[in-house]
């Protein structure tokens, strides 16, 4: 197996907890095979998001996939969420074990 086969991207989103269900349904529909969701807090353009109650809670969603799929996901998020929701998205290039899973 060459190293090239082991390259994927790690797509990370930090957004409002309120969109979790809708966002995960979108990821499934776009063909993402797995993701990790964790609770998050922090500060940004929408002020302090300290997760002290539902309205101020954030989540961080991490997805490992091929770059082509990540770009499709980015385009979808941009059209559907960027305008009205607090959302930060970024990509890392990563190397993975068990490439068949991603």
């Amino acid at each position, binding site marked *: 197996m060459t190293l090239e086969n082991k390259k994927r991207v790690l797509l990370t989103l930090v957004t*409002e907890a*309120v969109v979790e269900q*809708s966002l995960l349904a979108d990821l499934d529909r776009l063909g993402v095979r797995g993701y990790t969701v964790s609770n998050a807090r922090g500060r940004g353009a929408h002020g302090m998001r*300290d997760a*002290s*109650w*539902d*309205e101020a*809670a954030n989540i961080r969603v991490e997805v490992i996939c091929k770059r082509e799929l990540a770009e499709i996901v980015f385009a979808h998020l941009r059209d559907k969420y960027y305008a009205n929701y607090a959302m930060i998205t970024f990509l890392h290039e990563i190397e993975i074990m068990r490439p068949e899973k991603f």
Partner: protein
Amino acid sequence: MIDIVVLFFLLGLLAGLVRSELKLPPALYDSLSMVLLLAIGLKGGEGLAQQSLLPLLPQLGIVVLLGAVQTLIAFVVLLSLGRFDRVNAAAIAAHYGSVSVATFAVGVNWLNARGISFEPQLPIFLAVMEVPAILVGIMLARGLGRGTNWQLIARESFLGKGVVLLLGGMAIGWIAGPENLTPIRPLFFDLFKGVLAIFLLEMGLIVARQTSELRRRGLFVIAFGVIMPGVFAVLGIGCGIAMGFSVGGLTLLATLAASASYIAVPATMRLALPEANPGLSLAAVLGVTFPFNILIGIPIYHWLASMLVGGNS
């Protein structure tokens, strides 16, 4: 004498305003709200087990209508006097057409502390009145059909935590009846006041966080947050008189009508009307209306109800 649970609210408010380190774990806040919802439901179900359910149906129709009419009135006021755009006016109106469990719980506690009884169906009204405002609010902003994921909205509003726990608690209380409830009475009934007290401590902290937003929004939001509940309380008392309620029932229905949602509606509106500014609604609901209702509103509604139906019935 001010109710002891309200003192806890004031403590939270003060701690928040001076930026104390005090913070309740979010899981505790969630657990306490679950206990409150179940306790209110169980109590209502227990009462309903002792009466016939059929006369309730027209009453449910009346309170659904009340919620819808409140949303319409608030929408018109916000649009014309407040000069809000259509979407924000609709979103804020939906908050005011809906109800607040915390305000209701403080009302229940206020009546209990004074030995005033109320009709057992009030908790059903609490569950039922959560929903119509959401639907009316979305329709006011969007019109029917286009662009709204009704399936998602329906799931959010009918299967939300509040409705499930309230109606579930009522069903359990109704099936079990007073005797079978005895083993769980210590947790849900005896501890109600204590749970409410800690819950209100956190509410004080949450309300304190709205002050900066409120300062930016100015006088109209403050005036709206005080006057609108007063008007709705009168509407609520009117509906209650039509249903032949006691003073306690009238006070609670007025409290329900005057209260504004800060849990179910904000979450649903965030999904259904994402372009509406959630800070605006929460500043009005939490920064003004919630404290007004629990500090001043409830005693006034009770006084008004006793004036209208003549004393201690």
